[in-house]
């Protein structure tokens, strides 16, 4: 059953941010992603104020990304979190279904290894699904994964205009155009396998 992302996001739209929804995840696992991303040799930057066309930072456009870069560590933390959330029992506030966890992992793996997109923030929704969120200029994007179904909501933070659509995705088929546009510029390097991020 497709979940509507509207209900949860409407409440956040009035605040212009979903950051409050992210807090439980941040507290539980000490996830370092707060308001923005930290790039090597650069001060922390608020992604919501980004002037880049895609939520990325300079080090990710340098071609070769270090195995233990901030980006790869943040994605690794997201992947760990997704798996742990799939382990929580049904009824737990952070529970997501096994199918949702698998779909999320597949999308995160694709985005981490093949594109230069920044790691998203995320929060659980409706006790079965998970929502990823990115800021791109003045547009806030929410990608909700419920089993094998994907919904994308784009919210203009200035005028509050919303555009929501269902997205097709078959992990055994060609990647859909929405995934390619969400990922932003493709990576030009294969990158080192993150064997040990420490």
């Amino acid at each position, binding site marked *: 059953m497709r979940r509507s992302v509207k209900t949860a996001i409407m409440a956040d739209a009035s605040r212009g941010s979903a950051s409050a929804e992210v807090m439980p995840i941040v507290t539980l696992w000490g996830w370092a992603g707060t308001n923005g991303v930290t790039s090597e040799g650069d001060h922390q930057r608020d992604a919501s104020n980004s002037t880049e066309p895609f939520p990325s930072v300079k080090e990710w456009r*340098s*071609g*070769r990304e270090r195995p233990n870069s901030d980006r*790869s*560590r943040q994605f*690794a*933390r997201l*992947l*760990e979190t997704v*798996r*742990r959330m799939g*382990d929580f029992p049904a009824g737990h506030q952070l529970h997501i279904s096994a199918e949702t966890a*698998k779909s999320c*992992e*597949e999308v*995160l*793996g*694709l985005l*981490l*290894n*093949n*594109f230069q997109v920044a790691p998203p923030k995320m929060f659980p929704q409706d006790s079965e699904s998970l929502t990823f969120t990115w800021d791109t200029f003045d547009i806030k994007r929410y990608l909700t994964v419920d089993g094998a179904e994907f919904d994308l909501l784009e919210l203009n933070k200035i005028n509050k205009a919303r555009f929501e659509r269902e997205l097709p995705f078959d*992990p*055994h*088929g*060609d*990647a*859909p*155009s929405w*995934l*390619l546009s969400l990922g932003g510029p*493709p*990576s*030009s*390097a*294969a990158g*080192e*396998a*993150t*064997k*040990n*991020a*420490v």
Partner: protein
Amino acid sequence: MSGWGAQQVQLVWFLTDVANLHAAELFSQTWDGPPDQTQANRIPTPEAPFLSQAGSRRDGMAMQVVVQPGRVDLFVSVDPEQEPQKMLGSLFDLTGALAQVVAKLKVRPLVDRDAFRLAAVATFLKPVDTYSDAVKEWTKFSGMKIQAPSPSDLVFQINSRAALSGILCNRLINLSVFAIQPFAISLPPTSGSVASAPALLSARRHVDCNTVPDGRLLESDRHHIILSSLMSEIVRIHSSNSIKSLEE
């Protein structure tokens, strides 16, 4: 080419789904025998972000397979656990080291599913005596002269796309200087000082050929053809010893 040898070569399969892929099985499939070490994580973490990895060390070489969300990596490299001098003496011929791997891939694909992207990456080293000698290697390859006195921290990178086997590919080259600084620490500590030897320097050439992700899946029975094309391109670029090789 005189003085140059491969330090590491890496083949990468970028996959949407890595379920039921285990590094130990993939290792045995490639190198005819079980790995010496295996590790597995049901829940990967930033400290151990892989799902499984398996490896062996033989005759100064290290072979490894790593499975993590979104990718499978296969490595052949100089054993990094060796003494530095011995490590630099173990640089290998890339084509020869991969011959067995390529032969296996022709018979049976390493992974039983289509890939989102494929890559072949190689790192070459040439031991040199001084930093200036490494800069000379950079000058030879790039065709650009550096007149600045006492250069250091030299890094050069360029990517050029080209169609290989009908697929648009990145060809990313990174030139730098590789240094190993040996230290000798006596146990138990005596005078409290740490003896150090001069740094071992090498000119370093890193060539990364990978398919440009455009959303289309690459069929598993074509993987060995595409990877062979990528490897051939790496060998061609390295053997040319010139950035002009990217013009082709």
